[in-house]
């Protein structure tokens, strides 16, 4: 259905002005804190092998789903604190709060852990005028206890399945705890987080560590939720090259077993980690969603000049 108005922007001009203001206040925030702005390639010979993030491939490589690997290579090269505002691409992600191409703000802080970085995320959102109240912090375990009535670390697979509706065939994933935890997060927990003030969810199960450090059965990872919407994801960054390689290979094996695309992982990142990543924390913030919430827009499309349906 291509209406005659289809050439027009998805966002109003007023929203586009608010967007420009948001970008400049983000930059001012980092300039004042001596964090260096960097600009890394969007197109790479390698890609993420994350189980649930799909990359676009081109004849000459892969479009980034996050600038994480290149930024970590800069950190290993001694860049010090860095930030980047860039476009990232995720195949098959489209909906009211998703657009396959979106704008990410990502930054890294040598010497910080995930809790100290949460403080800075909060300071940033205060500085750009998104919120003024103190944010809350809640562990992944307490969020599930509060909103799903079960302990995500202790509940049996049967208990996890019993609290959420699912009508597809889960296939081999039916026996994965994380599969059911994700469904419960989408249906029950996430939508109830940060309804009053923004809230940091932290201490994820170790099985959902992604690229964060693991401490016992806890991953040193956090997400920021506001009005039920996930706005940011941060890690106390994994620096162990061998552990990073093992995780990449395990994710590749999982993808292969599921019959999914298995992209090559970034050997340059492993080599960089071997040479030494400073102890650091990093976080990615979805700027389109942040603007959507700040401007009380009905969808992420309304925050962009041209959303996926007319790009």
């Amino acid at each position, binding site marked *: 259905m291509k209406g005659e108005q289809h050439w027009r922007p998805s966002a109003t001009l007023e929203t586009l002005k608010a967007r420009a203001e948001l970008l400049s206040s983000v930059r001012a925030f980092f300039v004042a804190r001596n964090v260096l702005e960097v600009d890394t390639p969007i197109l790479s010979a390698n890609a993420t092998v994350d189980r*649930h993030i799909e990359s676009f491939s081109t004849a000459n490589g892969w479009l980034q789903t996050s600038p994480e690997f290149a930024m970590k290579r800069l950190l290993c090269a001694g860049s010090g604190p860095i930030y980047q505002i860039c476009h990232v691409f995720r195949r098959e992600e*489209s909906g009211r*709060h*998703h657009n396959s191409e979106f704008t990410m703000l990502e930054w890294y802080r040598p010497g910080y852990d995930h809790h100290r970085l949460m403080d800075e995320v909060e300071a940033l959102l205060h500085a750009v005028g998104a919120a003024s109240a103190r944010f809350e912090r809640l562990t992944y375990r307490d969020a599930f206890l509060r909103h799903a009535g079960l302990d995500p670390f202790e509940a049996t697979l049967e208990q996890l399945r019993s609290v959420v*509706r*699912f009508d597809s065939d889960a296939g081999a994933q039916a026996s994965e705890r994380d599969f059911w935890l994700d*469904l419960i997060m*989408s*249906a029950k927990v996430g939508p109830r987080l940060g309804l009053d003030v923004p809230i940091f969810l932290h201490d994820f199960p170790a099985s959902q560590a992604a690229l964060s450090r693991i401490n016992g059965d806890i991953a040193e990872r956090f997400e920021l939720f506001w009005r039920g919407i996930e706005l940011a994801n941060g890690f106390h960054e994994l620096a162990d090259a061998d552990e990073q390689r093992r995780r990449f290979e395990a994710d590749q094996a999982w993808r292969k077993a599921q019959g999914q695309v298995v992209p090559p992982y970034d050997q340059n990142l492993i080599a960089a980690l071997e040479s030494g990543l400073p102890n650091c924390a990093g976080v990615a913030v979805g700027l389109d969603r942040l603007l959507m919430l700040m401007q009380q827009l009905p969808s992420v499309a309304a925050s962009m000049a041209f959303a996926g349906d007319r790009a």
Partner: protein
Amino acid sequence: MATVSTNEMKSGTKVLIDGVPYAVIDNEYHKPGKGQATNSIKIRNLKTGRVLERTLKSGDTLEVADIEEVEMQYLYNDGEFWHFMNPASFEQIQAVQSAAEEAAKWIKGEETCRVLLFNGVAIGVTPPNTVTLLITETDPGLRGDTSGGGGKPATLETGAVVRVPLFVQQGEMIKCDTRTGEYMSRAGK
């Protein structure tokens, strides 16, 4: 067999689940940033009208239901079936009681209705939005009442019962809204 994937389902898409046709009302995509994506769809059973929710794994497909809605003229009821004709092709179809009963109380013949066909079989009939029908039975109103306040039940020639103002009498033609089931106005004799 045509199929439709969760990322193509929009409001109005017709899908088949366990042999039953549904219309998609709403489709919401959910995904934890680093987790499994799902779509929760709200669907209406096209036979019963009941609305359900289903949560599917993103990328899953459902069979497309062969559904079409055609404008047809109501001809007659033979006691068992309601007969309709396509005014363009003159093709006739018959609808069973369960498909026609909601519309049946508003139609007497020659009205243009919308007939919902599933694999070519009528599963629903929508009458015209407004119809003009004769009142066959209603109590005499109180003399002097012209306000329309209160009202009284009136039985129409097709069997429908609507509330009418007290001044409206048996033997009059009235206009009704079939979507709300309400009296709209007198239509003259």
